[in-house]
């Protein structure tokens, strides 16, 4: 298991995913207690968010089985990139109505994935609340969406893309991408 990464030029240290998940597992219960949320439904977003959610779900001993969300039918960039059939379908409990949702994703950047995920959730019903948990929140927000609980805040360069690889072991991969 690699302990961490160093981003060139920035000297920002990225904590390993396993440690970040442990930190999220510590932060989440007091947050839920403070909001008086009991019996929540945990929902992981395919694919990286599900890996994170699986561990969180185990650590927090949540009763309700883990739900998963495939947002590919709700993306706002369909007109540019088309559909992606390889992703597994969503598995949500039959009742979302009035439930407290803990939405889990790996990396929060633009906020567009979360926008799509919330649109899909609302097609299943009206949740009582949605708490957003992200392993990493980086710069580059394009929508007014922020995480409630974050493993690590990162300030990356425009060209740098961070991706969670897994599921065994979980690791971060930083790639240089072409910016239009």
């Amino acid at each position, binding site marked *: 298991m690699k302990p961490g990464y160093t981003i060139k030029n920035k000297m920002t240290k990225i904590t390993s995913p396993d440690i970040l998940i442990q930190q999220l597992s510590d932060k989440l219960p007091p947050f839920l207690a403070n909001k008086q949320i009991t019996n929540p439904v945990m929902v992981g977003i395919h694919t990286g968010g599900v890996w994170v959610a699986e561990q969180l779900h185990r650590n927090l001993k949540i009763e309700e089985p883990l739900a998963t969300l*495939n947002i*590919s*039918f*709700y993306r706002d960039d*369909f*007109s*540019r*990139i*088309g*559909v992606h*059939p*390889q*992703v597994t*379908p*969503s598995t949500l409990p*039959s009742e979302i109505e009035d439930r407290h949702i803990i939405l889990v994703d790996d990396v929060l950047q633009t906020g567009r994935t979360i926008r799509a995920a919330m*649109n*899909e959730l609302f*097609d*299943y*019903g009206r949740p009582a609340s949605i708490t957003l948990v992200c392993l990493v929140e980086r710069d580059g927000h394009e929508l007014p969406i922020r995480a409630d609980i974050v493993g690590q805040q990162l300030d990356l360069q425009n060209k740098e893309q961070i991706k969670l690889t897994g599921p065994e072991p979980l690791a971060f991969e930083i790639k240089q991408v072409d910016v239009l």
Partner: protein
Amino acid sequence: MVNKNARATNPLLGQDHWNIQLDENGRLKHFLTVEGLGSEILTEILDTAENFTSVNNRVVKKVPLLRGKTITNLFFEASTRTRTTFELAAKRLSADVLNINISTSATSKGESLLDTLYNLQAMQTDMFVIRHQDSGAAHFAARHVAPYISVLNAGDGRHAHPTQAMLDMLTIRQNKGHDFSGLRVAIVGDILHSRVARSQIHALNTLNTGVINVVAPRTLLPADIEKLGVKVHYNLQQGIQDADVVIMLRLQKERMQGAMLPSELEYYQQYGLTSDTLKLAKPDAIVMHPGPINRGVEIESSVADGSQSVILDQVSNGIAVRMAVMSMTLGTSAQQTGEEK
């Protein structure tokens, strides 16, 4: 395997009539025939459709993928299942749907197909779904519409019915697994008039099916059917022996001229699927039929409604497959024109 002469004799189908289905990146732009498409594209259609079946089982059966798109159903021939499932597929993708009823439209006043298409194109249609009595009508449309428009073939003459073939493949895959190489499939009935059978045979071949038997009286078989890579049987008992999948076809009485059959009763006695003849197939064989079924003509009621029948699953899968093809083709055309559109 492909009969080149048959193609050249039809003026509506060009030499390269399947190539116009793909864009320059090899992605599906129109869906006109299964012929000429590789197993990757067919598998992509099936995988995408599999995802959409989950949408169809939800309380809110709608996703916003094609919001703002206009899809025109242009049916020059009667249809219940195909037209309604195309309509539902479009609506579940949030597209706006226009159903043109040809018998009451300007076509009955003498407007040509091309003029009808151009007028609907001027109304900013993004996709045409076309059923027509002439083979090649959908290809003709695909060659003449504006480049950003996709055309789906919902059945043309005796030529092809590709979405029906793909919903059948999805049904087989759900029941028999992803590997078709060990499967024995029997297609029974009016092969001569059946665009469904032609498309099924192409799809089964492309997906590497072990054995494909076609079973029919000589008068209901096209001349060169063996060239498509199938085994011909004139005897139902032999043809469905040990089959994993039995596909019954409808006797297309409306297309029959002259004495092709002695009588419906005699046809049923020789080629009708009864619970007794079905015992010759494998015990876990599935029975399929594209509909509408003629009970007591090609299939016994107790078989059509029996535990081995997946006929109604085929109908449900029809929606998912049509959603898949619509989103794949419109996704590609949008990609081509980018954001300027």
